[in-house]
């Protein structure tokens, strides 16, 4: 017996010895920022192509733009970046930017107006997914030589018609507005790709950081640009590590191995809220959660039914239970913090009111199908709605499917209702107004599948011309008033039941200051971060 015990003990010892005690460092170095985030959505680092959240966060720190947001004060709106000033022509169709003198790219090349010209032209010519942000102003590969022109130290862009200056400039703060080092990129051009393949994994910007490396689904490493015109960042190195699991992010944060955890679930947020050395930082993001009522449905298209459904959502109950701080009630198509966003939330759960409206519309024994993508929070929202709708005598059948299955049916106007999320494409109210409240041709043949109003077969009840007018209004205050008016009408008449706006809750070490994820309109910025 002793012999066998010894055999087993020997084997156990061999393995146990492998557990070497390794001292874990209590915190990251003072000049290094380590962020845990899900970065598996990054497909490229080329600013003319990048259109994902994690990619935008990286590019925000690599590239300068003509105009940009102040990461410490987003309320200021766009401010000069590589362009130190601009002038709008009398007819409102041209904007001439004067480039900032003495700024250099990370390569050492000077940032010039021809670089800006080439970068914007390139984005239009390559015509990758985010190109629409620029081409909506009438720029085409054929006309960019005339519409985007450098002259000495100035760059002039000429739009196809008069637009609100704030609209154009807000769009230039998007990633696609990044100014690329033409000389460096063209040195790596392959088959006329204007450096697209090379820039997918390399950087050629003038921003506060340089891309050191990107390992897909693993990490992104940035090195501070000591010659950044805005001053060398305090964080000399930034490492964004892909950590998919919330619990793993929490453990790393608590152990001090990372400074910021960006994907903590409500349970882990609650867990770290009172932990020593950690603060929970909340920022409103642009993502909205909504229910869409298909207007080809004979019952759902009745105005009273649209109204009734807005009283059948338990906004507060969901916000305070399973959505638990990750979403806040918001009933307008412009996310809070956007120019002109309304904060009015007139609807709350009111079964009796909904019943009255349904009775007024002569609705009885209604049975509808709601399409939901297979994501936990969406399914739970759908189930909550199913429950409250049942109290008003409406039977809701939930169809759960993959993104493609649900999206295909939504685009084909096949679903009675869809539970969807929408995030803005660029930081201007037109990004959402132009899809929720704009639908110039509601016919099936128009196939305007990119417009949410078209997907619901809603002709916008007269909001389309108002939206068109708002996008050309030069006076900022008047423009804000116009969006307020559109949102008020939209709330009352539209077939969209907008319910929630996302809040990002991050766990941050308490010695880290000035970290921002960019709120609803921007992207994460590391250039102002300091450690105390």
């Amino acid at each position, binding site marked *: 017996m002793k012999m066998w015990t010894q055999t087993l003990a020997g*084997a156990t010892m061999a393995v146990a010895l492998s*557990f070497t005690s*390794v001292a874990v460092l209590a915190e990251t170095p003072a000049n290094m920022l380590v962020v845990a985030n899900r970065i598996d959505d990054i497909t*490229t680092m080329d600013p003319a192509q990048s259109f994902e959240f994690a990619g935008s966060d990286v590019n925000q720190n690599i590239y300068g733009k003509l105009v940009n947001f102040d990461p410490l004060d987003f309320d200021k709106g766009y401010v000069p970046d590589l362009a130190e000033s601009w002038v709008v022509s009398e007819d409102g169709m041209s904007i001439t930017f004067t480039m900032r003198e003495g700024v250099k790219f990370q390569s050492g090349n000077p940032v010039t107006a021809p670089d800006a010209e080439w970068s914007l032209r390139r984005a239009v010519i390559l015509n990758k997914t985010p190109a629409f942000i620029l081409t909506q102003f009438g720029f085409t590969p054929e006309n960019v030589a005339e519409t985007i022109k450098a002259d000495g130290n100035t760059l002039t862009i000429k739009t196809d018609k008069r637009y609100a200056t704030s609209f154009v400039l807000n769009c230039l703060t998007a990633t696609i507005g990044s100014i690329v080092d033409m000389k460096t990129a063209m040195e790596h051009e392959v088959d006329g790709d204007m450096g697209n393949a090379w820039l997918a994994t390399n950087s050629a910007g003038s921003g506060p950081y340089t891309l050191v490396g990107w390992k897909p689904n693993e990490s992104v490493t940035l090195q501070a640009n000591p010659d950044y015109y805005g001053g060398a960042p305090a964080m000399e190195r930034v490492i964004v590590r892909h950590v998919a699991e919330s619990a793993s992010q929490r453990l790393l944060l608590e152990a001090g191995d990372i400074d910021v955890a960006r994907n903590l679930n409500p349970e882990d947020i609650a867990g770290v809220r009172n932990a020593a050395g950690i603060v929970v930082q909340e920022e409103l993001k642009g993502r909205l959660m909504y229910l869409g009522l298909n207007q080809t449905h004979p019952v759902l298209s009745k105005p009273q039914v649209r109204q009734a459904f807005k009283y059948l959502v338990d906004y507060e109950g969901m916000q305070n239970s399973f959505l638990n701080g990750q979403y806040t009630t918001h009933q307008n198509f412009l996310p809070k913090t956007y120019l002109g966003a309304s904060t009015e939330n007139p609807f709350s759960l009111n079964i009796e009111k909904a019943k009255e409206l349904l009775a007024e519309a002569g609705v009885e024994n209604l049975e509808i199908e709601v399409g939901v993508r297979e994501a936990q929070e969406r399914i739970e929202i759908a189930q909550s709605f199913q429950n409250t709708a049942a109290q008003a005598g409406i039977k809701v059948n939930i169809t759960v499917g993959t993104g493609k299955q649900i999206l295909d049916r939504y685009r084909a106007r096949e679903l009675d209702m869809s539970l969807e999320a929408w995030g803005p494409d660029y930081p201007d109210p037109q990004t959402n107004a132009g899809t929720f409240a704009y639908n110039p041709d509601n016919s099936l043949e128009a196939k305007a599948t990119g417009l949410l109003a078209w997907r619901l077969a809603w002709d916008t009840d007269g909001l389309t011309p108002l939206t068109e007018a708002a996008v050309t209004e030069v006076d900022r205050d008047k423009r804000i008033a116009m969006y307020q008016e559109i949102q008020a009408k939209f709330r009352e008449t539209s077939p969209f039941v907008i319910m929630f706006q996302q809040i990002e809750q991050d766990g941050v070490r308490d010695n880290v200051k000035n970290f921002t994820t960019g709120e609803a309109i921007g992207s994460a910025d590391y250039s102002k971060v300091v450690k105390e």
Partner: protein
Amino acid sequence: MTSANHEGGARQRASLPLWVTASIKTLGSIAVTMLGLVFITFIIGRVMPIDPVLAIVGERASQSTYDAVYYQLGLDKPVIVQFGYYVWDVMRGDFGMSLLNARPVAEDIARVFPATLELATLGVCFGIVLGVPLGVVAAVRKGSWIDQLARVVALVGYSMPIFWLGLMGLLVFYGILGWVGGPGRVGIFYEDVVPSVTGMILVDSILDRNWTVLKDAFSHIVLPASLLGYYSLAYISRMTRSFMLEQMSAEYITTARVKGMSEWDVVWKHAFRNIRVQLITVIALSYAGLLEGSVLTEIIFSWPGIGSYITTALLSADMNAVLGGTVVVGLIFILLNIFSDLLYKVFDPRAR
């Protein structure tokens, strides 16, 4: 003359060395299996309700952008033609470009596979070192407390969710005790410190003689490897016990004991020798399972291995990456099978 030559040729063919014909058969078998694997995966990829074009351009892209990518991917061609092109490329070692990150799939696999390889190898070593002795002792002392312990260890190994066990392991050994490194292959301070030669950080740090990185990398791998090893141990120990029980009841064991042979020799020199071939199969299967990548373990420990690579690719409709990963995993299974067959011949003269 012609006839004589012909006969000579026939004799020559007939007299081909046995190993040559065996090799040809093996290679043929590999080719057919791989072709079948690629075909099935390819078809599944095409019928899945995920749109690879949408995955690339996003749902807000214009119809013209969508169409451009659709044609660029060759999706307008008949499926069989697409399959033909794909097989031709794979035969040349080209798995295509990742649809999402526009990098060669072969490069991505070369980056993630070594991470899985070192994790699985360490895991299976753990399983063998503990599992085999535990199984042998449990069989020899059937019904004793050691046998009961082995049963409980195996039962827990089989039934405990790896997700939970991994998180608990991290919480205790990393979060509370601080004995091991946290998620990731290496601490952030040691990222890219040693040059990548094999892609396996343990090996690369030894080659670079960087003992600090080696120690740090080891502290990161020991927990996930132990976790995988524990599941491997559960399987190996139960199978070892079963094989040993069969041998221990055989007549030759009784004869050996009657002849006065020591119990150690009876067990290790007689009974254990006879289960080696079966054990090889069990260990090879266990190893192959680990090499396939343990997705949950990789996710919890932020381990950029092939399991999470294929899963992420699948969820993102990156079919080139899925196909490339599947082909590599399939090839590993086949190679391990061949390796097992070779070992049979080493340990069992009847198989030669």
